[in-house]
């Protein structure tokens, strides 16, 4: 029986070590998996990983801060990454961006208060012929118009059962 969060997390990360290995080359796959499960890599997780791989915690921090898809601070359940590179820019990404901000009530780089959505810029998503493009977690949306934004967000909410979750919470309250 594990009582404390650090103990539980240590065991979880150790089991990732069994999967990815315990040498430095295992660092990024391990961090990617922690990011996927927790939507971010906490200071504690970084130190447990460092310990397991016999490197310094600051080296883990250094790697996490280098890559756009790894974060020290937890992200929202759905990370929306809007492409800002030239082709999407020319196809009207700026208006899509404004609409995303309006519909979510946050600006780029922020996470909604309920922790559901994070809004970020991305550099070229490789959808230049179908822009403006955005990525929500691992799903790609192309030829996005300002008008389509609401539908996309709704689709997210429903697909992931958020409405049900909210209803449940309201019911409980």
């Amino acid at each position, binding site marked *: 029986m594990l009582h404390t969060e650090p103990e539980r997390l240590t065991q979880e990360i150790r089991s990732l070590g069994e999967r990815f290995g315990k040498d430095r080359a295992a660092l990024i796959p391990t961090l990617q998996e922690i990011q996927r499960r927790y939507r971010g890599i906490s*200071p504690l997780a*970084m*130190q447990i990983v460092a310990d397991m791989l016999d490197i310094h*915690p*600051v080296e883990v*921090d*250094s790697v996490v*801060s*280098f890559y756009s898809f790894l974060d020290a601070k937890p992200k929202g359940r759905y990370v929306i990454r809007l492409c800002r590179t030239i082709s999407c820019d020319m196809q009207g990404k700026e208006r899509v961006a404004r609409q995303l901000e309006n519909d979510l009530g946050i600006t780029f780089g922020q996470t909604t208060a309920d922790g559901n959505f994070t809004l970020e810029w991305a550099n070229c998503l490789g959808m230049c012929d179908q822009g403006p493009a955005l990525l929500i977690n691992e799903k790609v949306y192309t030829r996005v118009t300002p008008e389509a934004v609401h539908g996309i967000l709704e689709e997210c909410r429903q697909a992931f059962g958020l409405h049900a979750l909210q209803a449940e919470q309201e019911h409980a309250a």
Partner: protein
Amino acid sequence: MVSDNVPQDVGRAPRSQQRQTVAPPQNLESLGARVLCTIDGKEVRVPVGTTILAAARELGIRIPTLCNHDDLCVAGVCRVCVVEVEGQRTLQAACAYPVTQPTKVWTHTRKVRQARRHIIDLLLADHYGECYACSRNNNCELQSLAKEYGVDFFRFGHPEKPRYEIDRSSHSVVRDMNKCVLCRRCIRTCIDLQEVGVLEAIHRGHDTKVATFLDKPLAQVVCINCGQCINRCPTGALRANDPTDDVWAAIDDPTKHVVMQTAPSPRAAIGECFGQPAGKAFTFELNTALRHCGFDKVFDTNFTADLTIIEEGTELIIRLYKALVQKDKSVALPQFTSCSPGWVKYIEHFYPQYLPNVSSAKSPQQMFGALIKTYYAKLQGIDPKNIVSVALMPCSAKKFECNRPEMCDSGYKDVDYGLTTRELGKMISEAGIDLPAMPKSDFDDVFGTATGSGVIFGATGGVMESALRCVIELVTGKKVENFYEHAEILPVRGFEGVRYVEIPITAVGPVPDLVKHLVPDWNWLKGATLKVGVCHGTANAKKVMEDIKAGGKFSECHFIEFMACPGGCLGGGGQPIPTTPAIRAARAKAIYSEDRAYTVRKSHENPVIQHIYKEFLTDGPCGHVSHKLLHTHYTARGKYIP
């Protein structure tokens, strides 16, 4: 196949900064072969894999560098050293380009000059601060480059506002990232050379910054305060926490009695602050200079180095006796030295389970501090609250050490201020004194002149050598000179990172008075072999600790000397900048020749030491009084950062 200036053992430096700049030979037959390198028309044959920079140095051709450092592995990031290489479309970094085939190089073509000038201008465009208000004014590599390349205006602008807050949290190291040029020497020092792992680059692009774990203040992370990063920083981005204003204020205050103790390493290096070549000690000129500055008394830290040897040596004898004769399993062996405060903090963070092995004896600096405010104050009839105790040390960690809460055994802060060699050099200049021109004068009475044993504390292996000189004579009853010529125990000397020495004890003599109350006889040591270890630089300390953990040969040692800084104190983080392998070697020479000049070269023969055990520390080494004043305890800090 490694060029001279690339360390063989690269440790765990970030791979991008490792020695992969040196190509493995294409065919093994070329091993050891030499290859022609033509630089600016001059020819030299160098071993395959030599960098262009090293080849140029051999030819006496200067190529400017910034991120390169002789102690560190290659980075190739600043690009100041770019040169034109025949057949290459782009310019190549001379520090990182290995010569593996006949190569023609040009070091100052139009392209090269333009690139260097631009690079320097770009660095200046991101370097906040004014040279005349910087601790590194006139000793700054960026400033020198700007001068060398004729920078007379800020081509790409100059920051008007700082980007980052200065981190003054540490007692030892101040970090001002506004002056950082991202050469990453500090990273390579911290991760690779010292393996402490406090500093790394975070973020990327223009946001790249050297930072601690989660960018926390230095005082909240596992920094051991060794200051090696300061010694390698080309600019004023890293500097020691400077208390000279407070020291001047104490000197100016007529009610204060300001006492200075000087350690041997700064004395062997301070001449470098006055344009003297490395390798000349200015011990006695310094005494005069310090009195001119206004210090009331000047003492020699070597006195308490001798005292450390007696206390630490006695502690070792007690541990050995308990373990070997009384079969007490709880005794922690090997015993570790405790005089390097960087090492002490290192073990507190990284190997706290081994703290019982660390000698409880304080470092010489702190022993002196405790004696000055008790023994000396009483003797001179001065109220200890009016004494300001200053220590000249080669060390930035000493600043942290004197601020440890447990270092107040005299009832006051035992040592008020730790000054680095650089800071005292500045004070002396400020007083208008030309140190090398000062007449010589001796240390002040009461503690008198110490022995050669104390002097060699400054070099790696010195503490061990001093301890052995003492132990051999106390146990065998014979002169060390019978075993080692000039009492110089050469096996423990040198710059090899980790050293292991065995000393057989073939015969024993009578137990001397000093330790008679502790052991009845030495028969239990007869035929035994004393096993000792020496290491310097925490990367090597780590190797020894891992060996002990794994039950290797160092776990069977009796006594191990640990020094946090490469080369020992003479290569300390408070020493003049630059510090390089060559400079460390020169300082070591100065220290060993000073040792030879002493008539008394063994701690136990120091007459004042003998006197103090009669008059003040009356219950002997490791007795009650000495335990109260001269011994301490440690804190298991661990490495987790909340």
